[in-house]
């Protein structure tokens, strides 16, 4: 069993591990860290994720982002240029195919060959490992915007080595998100440790003056109470910072009740600063990203556009700088370049309509939700830290095993999944079952009261059926 601690990986240990990571596939040999640092330093600021986002002119802007990945370099370049020009995008992405994410490199090889022969994408994203550093550079050099990778992977070490050396300036994920949402085989220690490696790599780039911005999400899914998401996220932010990450995209998953989403986002901004400072990371900068959890994506086009509009309004209200949206056709297919461009355009128009206008959520409910989410998040997070005697990684392992921090729909069989969220009559997510979360009676009573209100409306007890209905609600065009 790996002994995991929230301690910066020693440089010699890191470089030793690196040799093994880079030997996993022949293109690993192309990675030359010193050369990559020089390449990054020569990128103009408008092509660097952190520099673009922290430019004072952009601090109050809201830029859309979504996944985009084709199999061959030519297809990917065509896609990104199209989204940049026709979609008027401000940020671009490289979605990594899901065989690469699970290291099925032989299947990738076959899919890539077939794609080159037929001109059709056979893989659901770009196989970055196979294209290697030189291939990725062609993409970065073909566009005029920052590009970040998107993937979920239990072991993304080689993916990040290659895609970062290739010139990506943003990247995906934290260990915890990938442990419970993207993994069925590995224990949390291993997944967290793999991500510590990635964050140590980013830390190395940062030490040499190259800003790289990873996303920190903690947990993903529909019907998950915000305090659960935020606790997971904050633990990962602290683990990233410990490895030397200096720029973090805090990716908050909204659920559709505006008071709760905006109140929680406010809590997240407050607590992220407080906990970073408390653990000595005063120089770490955060960038807020919001994405609306859809669960079942809307199949019908009108509803899909409406979901993008709503997602964008939530981002605007939360004060998020990045608006993470789902492509209009994503319910049915891996999107085409036209689908992606039109998605970006519609998000941009909505956001632009709000330019110079102040919009706000009912202040009374906002205050309540903000306070509740803060109280709940502190209770879980402080308990996690306490379990680890001040070490958040040690505490996390214990918290996951005991359900002190839990996930309702984890893909990993090692998670209790005793906790369950449900919407109240206004679409705010409450705890139907709090599992083993360390809550006070007062907090539980608040949730119970909200649930009872909806039960009265429904004329029946909330059960699994209601949970399922909640999960499918947005795809049916309603919030509750």
């Amino acid at each position, binding site marked *: 069993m790996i002994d995991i601690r929230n301690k910066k990986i020693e440089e010699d240990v890191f470089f030793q591990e690196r040799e093994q990571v880079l030997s996993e596939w022949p293109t690993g040999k192309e990675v030359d860290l010193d050369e990559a640092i020089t390449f990054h330093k020569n990128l103009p600021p408008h092509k660097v994720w952190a520099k673009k986002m922290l430019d004072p002119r952009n601090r109050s802007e809201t830029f859309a982002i979504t996944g985009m990945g084709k199999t061959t370099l030519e297809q990917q370049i065509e896609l990104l240029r199209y989204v940049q020009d026709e979609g008027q995008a401000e940020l671009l992405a490289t979605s990594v195919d899901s065989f690469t994410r699970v290291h099925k490199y032989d299947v990738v090889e076959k899919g890539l060959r077939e794609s080159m022969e037929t001109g059709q994408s056979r*893989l659901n994203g770009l196989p970055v490992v196979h294209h290697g550093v030189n291939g990725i550079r062609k993409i970065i050099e073909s566009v005029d915007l920052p590009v970040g990778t998107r993937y979920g992977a239990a072991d993304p070490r080689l993916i990040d080595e290659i895609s970062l050396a290739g010139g990506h300036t943003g990247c995906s994920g934290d260990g915890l998100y990938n442990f419970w949402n993207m993994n069925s085989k590995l224990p949390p220690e291993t997944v967290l440790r793999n991500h510590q490696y990635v964050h140590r790599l980013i830390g190395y780039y940062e030490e040499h003056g190259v800003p790289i911005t990873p996303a920190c999400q903690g947990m993903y899914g529909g019907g998950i109470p915000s305090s659960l998401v935020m606790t997971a996220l904050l633990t990962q932010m602290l683990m990233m910072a410990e490895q030397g990450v200096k720029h973090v995209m805090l990716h908050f998953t909204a659920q559709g009740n505006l008071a709760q989403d905006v109140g929680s986002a406010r809590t997240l901004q407050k607590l992220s600063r407080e906990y970073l400072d408390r653990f000595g990371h005063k120089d770490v900068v955060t960038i807020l990203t919001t994405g609306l959890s859809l669960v079942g994506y809307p199949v019908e086009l009108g509803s899909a556009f409406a979901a993008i509009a709503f997602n964008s309004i939530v981002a605007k209200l939360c004060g998020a700088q990045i608006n993470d949206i789902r492509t209009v056709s994503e319910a049915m297919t891996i999107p085409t370049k036209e689908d992606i461009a039109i998605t970006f355009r519609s998000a941009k128009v909505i956001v632009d309509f709000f330019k110079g206008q102040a919009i706000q959520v009912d202040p009374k409910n906002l205050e309540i939700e903000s306070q509740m989410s803060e109280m709940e998040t502190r209770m879980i997070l402080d308990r996690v830290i306490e379990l680890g005697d001040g070490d958040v990684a040690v505490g996390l392992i214990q918290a996951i095993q005991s359900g002190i921090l839990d996930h309702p729909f984890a893909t990993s069989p090692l998670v209790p999944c005793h906790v369950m969220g449900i919407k109240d009559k206004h679409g705010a997510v409450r705890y139907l079952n709090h599992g083993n979360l360390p809550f006070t009676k007062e907090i539980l009573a608040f949730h119970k009261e909200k649930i009872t209100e909806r039960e009265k409306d429904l004329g029946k007890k909330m059960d699994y059926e209601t949970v399922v209905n909640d999960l499918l609600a947005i795809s049916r065009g309603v919030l509750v």
Partner: protein
Amino acid sequence: MTDENETKGTMVTGVIGDDVHVVGIRILEHALREAGFKVVALGVQVSQEEFIDAATETNADAILVSSLSGHAQILAPGLREKCIEAGLNDIRLYLGGQLMIGKTAWEDVEKTFMDMGFNRVYPPGVLPPQIIKDLEADLASKK
């Protein structure tokens, strides 16, 4: 309703291959249990061999394969042949999800996988009652 010892049939469920999209199959499993089926849930990232081993061990009536990664053309071929090799001659194979990459007419998608030996193929958006209705019809015709 059926009593505890009597089920409408045994279903092996799982998400195939590289895929981790778990919520849809969990909802279906819940609905199947409610409808009186026995469910052997294998979770995510399940290989063809794991589906077949579970079906053999539990003498299953059907294997319900979920795939949302767009990779079903790579992951699904050979499942029917492997079932026959394992002696599962009349097992029903259902497949559902986001099966192909890019825009392909649904009839073509359906035909691609029916030709591979699947008995039913479903697009995204189909809800559990439809699948349960089809299962009941297919299993009745089998008997």
